[in-house]
Every structure is written in C-alpha cells, then in structure tokens.
C-alpha cells in the first residue's frame, strides 16, 4: 500500500515538475526472491524396458508425445550418407500397420494431429501433437509406426528425390554453404562432417531403412515422454496393453566412430557474387563430460552468446555498424566434442576488418581477466534466466529424456546454477587460452572476394578456394 501511495504521489509531482523522472530507477530496484521448484516428471517403465516420462497438465485439452530412439546419423556408413534423413522422412510418410500412406496422412489431417520424425547425430525422435480426445487413436498409430512401419517404396522414392533436390539447392543460401564447409574441415572423414550427395542418396535401398529400424527401434532402446491433458493411470494401462508384449531387442551400445584430426587451419573462400560476406571462425571444443563447460558457457556469453551484452555485438555491431548479426557459440557435444564458433555477416568491403575484430576479441579474453562487473552480468543472466528452462511443459519432459539418454549426472539441473555461480574471472581466462586459438581456427568466407578489403591470405593461413558442386 505504501508503495502504491508513493507511486501516485510521484506521478502527481511529475505533472507540475518538468524534468523530474517519476519512475523508479531500474538500476536501484530490489525484488522479492523468486519462488520456484522444478516441475516433477514422473518416471516409470514397462517390463520390456520401455522407459516412460509423464507430466500431466490439464490447462489446455492438448497432448504431446515424444519418442526418442538411440540411433542416428552417427550410425550411418559413408557410402550411404543421408540415410538418417531418408529414414526419418520415409518412416513419417510411408504408412503404418494396415494403413496406407494416404490413409495415415488423411487420418492425421482430419484430427489436426501433427506427426514429425527426424534424425540427428545420435538419436531419432518421433513427435505427436494431438487433441486429448484423440489419445487412443494416437497410441494405436504410434504402436503401428514403431512395430509395423510401412516404409512404402513409392513414398521412399519421393523422399529420395526431394533429398537430391535439397543437395542441388544447398548453395542457394550463403549460411548453408559456410556451415557445411566448416563442419567438413573440422570433422573430416566422419559422420559429423559428411554431407550427402546424389550418389550416396541413390545408394540407399529400402532394405537399408528396414535394417536401420530393426537395429534401433526396441522397447529397451527408446524413451517415451508425454505431457498434457491425460490420466497417468489410464495411460499406464493403455501402454501396457499396446506395448507390453513387444519383446526386448539385443542391447548393443551405440558405437561412436572416433574423430580423426581436423584439417590443418586454413581460410576457405567460396567466391560468390554477393554484397555481403558470411564469416565463420571455428574449432572443435568439448563434450558434455568436460567440467570446462561452465566457464566456457560464461566465456561464450561474454564473447558473443549474450546478444547485446556480448563483446562481439558491442564492438562490431553497436560501436562500428559493421554487422546486423554477430555472435559466438559453444556447442557442447553429447558424445563427441562440438564446435566452438564465431559467426556473422558484413559487407564485402569490411570482411577482413570483421575477422580481425573477432580475433582481437578472442585475444583480449586470452590476455586479460574479464572485469568483475562483466563477469557478474554473464553469470546473473545465465542463472536468473534458468527458470525459463521450465516454462514449456513438453520441453521439461523432453529435456528429462535427453539428460537420461545421454547419461547426464542425476543432479545436473539442480547444480547447474551453482556451477555457473562458482566460475571466476581466472577460470574464464583459462578456458579462453585453451579453446580460443585464432591461429588454430578454420576460417570460412562466403562472399565476393574481389571486393574484400584485403586478401584472405593476410590472415596468415593457407587459402583454399571452395569449388562449386
């Protein structure tokens, strides 16, 4: 009440005292502590090893289901690169059980139900979004998709042709070219760095899709998560009757092909008729077991992960007007080291200047400890925004599944904020010295070379021209 009166009084004053700002100063406000607890995801399992993650919530009459399967692009051989994507798309569109592909499409559309399947490096995921009244139908369809998928041959051909068309179009956008070139340089001869071609896509046979499915889709190699308006008791019974008789598979652990050394650092130039250059600087970083991830997260916020609060944004965009988008990313790999990269776009005539500024910001982080205030901002932002990791119900469920699947420690989330809070300026400098090594980074420039402000060779690295495919 007192606050209310004070507010009114100040407003009245403002009416007659020009120049006095009646608003409280946001830099000096204090707040009641935020009360929050982790939403509890219930974990259960069927006798055949199928793990269930349940988070009921009846605010809206909707349900989301995700199935996560231990099989991804990492399991695909070089000569069939692209199989992961063809598998997922054909599984999605190829019919299920007694239903033809057209029947599946039409039954889904009639119920406004969304079905999506995709394959990433280590896993494949199936997602269903539905109205609560369609749960029995959705579960039956899910059983058919998992146990008796159609992989219709005609639909597979359509998927293959679409994938080949995507190969033809992958240089249409400069960002797509730059990303591909960087991955290929950092992960040579490895599934993480490979891209499909018409040849590898044409080498995929329907039997390969069936074999991939047989190998990976078992009740003890998948997790099923569900959130929304359902009754957990009824669901348990339904799942038991639909999936209880599904027998376990051979429990073979996913084999992760070891990385080969990255290509020697170089500048890769894709010469294109463009007014703006897309820039990537990248190196391999860490995987999730590495304790450096916390100082690296803080370092990344300060370097280029913290949007307007980051140094790349401040120096390159805000102070100099040289870019709209400029950022850094520390991708913490699930099984193998992910990339640490800096990226952005600038007009052709400031290309090398921006690369130089990116390098300068890395050098500063290596040379000097970050000021206390900047460190505090990065840590507070990461800690105080943590609550947003829980504001989408289904994301809470799928995160719980991911953390379990990739063997994160059981208290990972609980300790996340403490782990960030304990990062010091010395820690940040230490990881910057280890992981930000400009002379070891691969540089990719997609743009009009003749208009660059300096020759790429001035970066002190060998220059490679990226040919058009």
């Amino acid at each position, binding site marked *: 009440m007192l606050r209310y009166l004070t*507010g009114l009084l100040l407003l009245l004053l403002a009416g007659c005292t020009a120049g006095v700002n009646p608003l409280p*100063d*946001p830099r000096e406000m204090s707040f009641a502590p935020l009360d929050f607890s982790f939403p509890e995801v219930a974990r259960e399992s069927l006798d055949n090893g199928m793990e269930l993650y349940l988070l009921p919530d009846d605010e*809206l009459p909707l349900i989301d289901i995700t199935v996560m399967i231990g099989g991804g692009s990492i399991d695909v051989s070089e000569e069939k690169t692209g199989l992961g994507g063809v598998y997922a798309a054909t599984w999605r*569109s190829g019919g299920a059980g007694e239903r033809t592909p057209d029947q599946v499409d039409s039954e889904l559309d009639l119920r406004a139900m969304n079905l999506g399947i995709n394959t990433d490096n280590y896993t494949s995921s199936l997602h269903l979004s539905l*109205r609560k009244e369609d749960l029995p139908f959705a579960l039956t369809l899910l059983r058919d998709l998992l146990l008796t998928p159609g992989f219709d041959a005609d639909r597979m051909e359509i998927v293959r042709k679409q994938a080949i068309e995507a190969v033809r179009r992958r240089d249409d956008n400069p960002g797509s070219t730059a990303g591909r070139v960087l991955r290929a340089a950092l992960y040579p001869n490895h599934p993480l760095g490979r891209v499909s071609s018409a040849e590898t896509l044409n080498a995929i046979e329907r039997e390969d899709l069936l074999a991939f499915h047989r190998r990976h889709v078992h009740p003890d190699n998948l997790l099923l998560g569900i959130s929304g308006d359902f009754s957990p008791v009824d669901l348990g019974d339904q799942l038991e009757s639909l999936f209880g008789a599904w027998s376990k598979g051979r429990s073979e652990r996913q084999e992760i092909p070891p990385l080969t050394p990255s290509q020697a650092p170089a500048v890769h130039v894709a010469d294109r008729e463009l007014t703006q250059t897309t820039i990537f600087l990248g190196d391999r970083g860490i995987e999730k077991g590495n304790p450096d991830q916390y100082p690296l997260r803080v370092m990344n916020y300060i370097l280029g992960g*913290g949007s307007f609060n980051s140094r790349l944004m401040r120096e390159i965009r*805000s102070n100099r007007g040289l870019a709209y988008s400029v950022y850094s990313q520390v991708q913490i790999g699930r099984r193998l080291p992910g990339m640490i990269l800096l990226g952005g776009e600038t*007009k052709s005539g400031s290309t090398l200047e921006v690369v130089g500024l990116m390098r300068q910001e890395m050098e500063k982080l290596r040379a000097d400890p970050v000021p206390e205030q900047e460190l505090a901002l990065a840590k507070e932002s990461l800690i105080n925004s943590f609550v947003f990791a829980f504001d989408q119900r289904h994301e809470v469920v799928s995160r719980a599944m991911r953390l379990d699947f990739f063997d994160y420690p059981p208290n990972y989330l609980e300790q996340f904020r403490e782990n960030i809070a304990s990062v010091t300026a010395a820690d940040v400098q230490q990881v910057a010295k280890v992981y930000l090594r400009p002379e070891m980074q691969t540089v990719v420039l997609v743009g009009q070379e003749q208009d660059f402000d300096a020759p790429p060779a001035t970066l002190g690295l060998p220059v490679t021209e990226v040919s058009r495919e």
Partner: protein
Amino acid sequence: MNDLKKLACRLAGGIFLVVFCCSPVGAATLAEKVREHTLENGLKLLVVERHGSPTFSAYITIGVGSVDETAETRGVAHLLEHMLFKGTKRLGTKDYAAEKPLLEKIAAVGAQIDELKVMPDADPEKLAMLRQRLAELQEQHKQYVVKDEFSRIYGENGGVGYNAFTSKDLTSYLISLPSNKLELWAAVEADRMQNAVLREFYTEREVIREERRRSYDTRPAGKLYETLIANAFTAHPYRNPIIGWDSDIDNLTLEETRDFLRRYYAPINTVIALVGDVSFDQAVRVVENSFGGISPGTKVPPVAVIEPEPAGNKRVDVEFDAEPQVSIAFHKPTLPERDDYVFDLIDQILTGGRSSRLYRALVLEQQLATSVSTYGAPGGRYPNLFVISAVPRYPHTAKEVEVAIEAELGKLGREPVTDEEMTRAVNRLRTDHLRQMRANSGLARSLTYFQTVAGDWRYLAEYVQVMESISADEIRDAVRRYLVDGKRTVAVLTKKEM
C-alpha cells in the same frame, strides 16, 4: 511448411534475429481468461493470468508500421525501432546534461552530410571534412555512452527474448521475465516511451544496411518475396519493403526519425499484453503508476490510398545465383471482412497438411515441387494478398509448377469442396488456436496483434465460431472472384548464368 494460418508472415526487421509468424489463436476459454483495462490516456492493457511457471511475457505494441510512412521516410518505422534500444535520458548515459550538447553537434554535422551527399555537385573535399568531423564527435561521444543498458538490466534480471519487430502495420517490443520483475519491466518501458534518446544514430543506420543485405540482398527467398510485394501493389504503401530500399536507409535523417517517434509513440496508439504469472490487479496498478501520467497523443491516421483494380496479370523475373522458386499473389480483402475468413479456409484446403490439394497434386502425385505453401501478406490493416509459393523439383520448371497450380485453382472454382475437407480445415484452425495459447509470448503477441489490427482482441475469441459458419459455396465464390486470371502477380526466381 507450417500449417498455421499465416498473416504478415515475413516480419522484416527485428532488432535482433528472430523469425516467427503471427497466427490468430483462440479458444472457447480465451474470452474468460483475458482481462482488460483502459487507462484514461487511452493505453489498452490486456492481461492473462497463468500461474504454471513463475514467468511472464510482456508485449508493447504500437499501432504504427511501415505502411504509415511517406515516400521520403520509407524505412523510418523500423529504424526508429532500432533507435529505441539506445537508452533514455537516464539509461544508456553517464551524464545526459553533459552529453546533450555533443549529441546536438553530432546531429548538426550529420544533417549537413545528409543534405550535401545527395547533391550532384557536392564538393568531395567538404564532404570528407564533414565526415572526419562526424567521426571525431562520435569518438568524443563514447565517453558518455553506457552501452546497451536496457539489455544489461534485463539480462542480469533473467530476462529472455528481449527483442522488437516492425511490420507493415505495427511495431512490437517484447521481453519475458521472471515473475518478480514486473515493476522493473514497467520502470524500463515507461521510461523508454517518454524519455528515449536517439543516440548513435549514424552507426545504427549502417547496421540496418547490413540487415538489409542479410535478409534480402543475399537470400533468394527474401529477394523474391520483396520483389513480389513491390510489384503486386501499384499505389498502396504495402508495396514498400519494411526495412526500406538501401538508399532510403542511407538518407533517413535523425529529424525524420524523431518526428515519427513524437508523432505516433503515444498511449492512444499503444496496446500492452502481460501474459503469465502476474495478477490482474497488480498489473493494473503497476501500469497505471508507470504509464498513467503520459499524455494521450494523437491517433495514427488511416492510410487513404486505395489500390486500383489491377489492369491485368503482372509478371516479374528475379535473377539470382540460386535454383528456381515461384510465388503467385492475388489481391483479397482483409479482416474483419467475411471473405478474409473464407481465405483462411482456402489456405487450409490448398496447403494445410499432406492431404491438402496442392501438396497432393504438386508434391505427391505430379512430383513437380518439393514444397508448396500459401499465406496472407504483407499486412492485415488494409486489403492484402493471398500468396502461393512453391519450390520446383529439377528437371521440372517454375512454369510447369505454375500451370499445375492454376489447374488446381480452376478446380476449386468449379466444384464445391467436400465435407471432409471442410471438417479438416475447421479442426485444424480450431486446434492450432489452442496450440498457440501454450506459450505466454505467443498469446501476448496474438492479443496485441488483433487488438491493434482488428481493433479488438475478441476477434480471436470469436474466430472459430465464424469459421464454422462458412459454407462450401462461399469458398467457391471467393475463388471465382479473387483467384482469377487477369488479377495475379507472378514472381519467378531464375538462376543467373554465372
């Protein structure tokens, strides 16, 4: 492509990268959940309490966009949106009183340069000297600037999604915060509305030129879209790119930008939505305290231009170093006209899901295209366009795809759609409405969008009911009236021979 109804799909120009589409949301329950309060100065507050997570999303939407610009000020709504991230008399500065004279000097030199640089007989030496002088002043100015202080304050208080975007129709400022920070949000935003200082103007103009290169000049889909819209309209300002053409941006002045701010950024043109873990009473109190003292301002006047009837088909080629794409646009009415609802059904029947007509015909049966989508563009306040876009699959050509689309439109105009198609479309719209309500920020966006563009957020709440009343005959009639030869604009992206 996504299956939602798409309005003003390409919101060119956020302050920071983000892409999304505006979709109407609604449900039987929506009307009960939204509470509204209008301040005496005209500012409209909409609140939805949801206590599932200790967070809230805040949208401030000003009902002014690029459609309200003149030929001299193309791009100013978006430039101003960027400038409003630069602080106020209190935030973003070490000492505004000391900074102010320097800002005035910078503005004077900047204006001199802008005036001189377009003169054919401009003395290059004088220009160089002025530019040197500007650079020196800008360097001096740095001593007063506290960089990106809004962003720092929101960041350390746990804010996420701090951003803004400009569309043809409106400009929105958004943030999501932990729920104990409502008063912080109000203090920052009310200060921004009243006391904004447009510092670092000339640098920001360059940022926007980079944004333009990134979103339009180097992206085939962006270029094609911009060209389609610029050609589909002859007179109406919907034809102009939100971000402006490159020379527009380069010639926008600080004075024009300030003028746009003074003229339109006022409570009478403002809608605020707060969605999440807030209480209505507290929200009203906080918003009254912070925004209640601002004078109402004047309403944005309606655009008087009426697009003339097209004299025939228009066709334009876009040469680009990329594989072909095709877009076809037809003029149509906008909300709240009944035919606009009819077009939401047509949208679903043509491309909503894999059993839709165009997906089946082009992608599955004839296999001419890898994808096909339909959407409304480029805005919603004035009569707009129904657009069909497709990606041909080699060796099939854009022409073949165009012919196949025409054939499907012809069929839609001859035979009424089936009951099953109608059920599918209505179910889809109804369910997608529910889906859009799941995220606080999505709901806040929809509420301010429809309050601003339709004049009342209840458009959303009543949407599905209107949809259910539309007949198959109405669809056929609309197709015959609007999706016809002689009224279309076709833009084709063709591969430039290198």
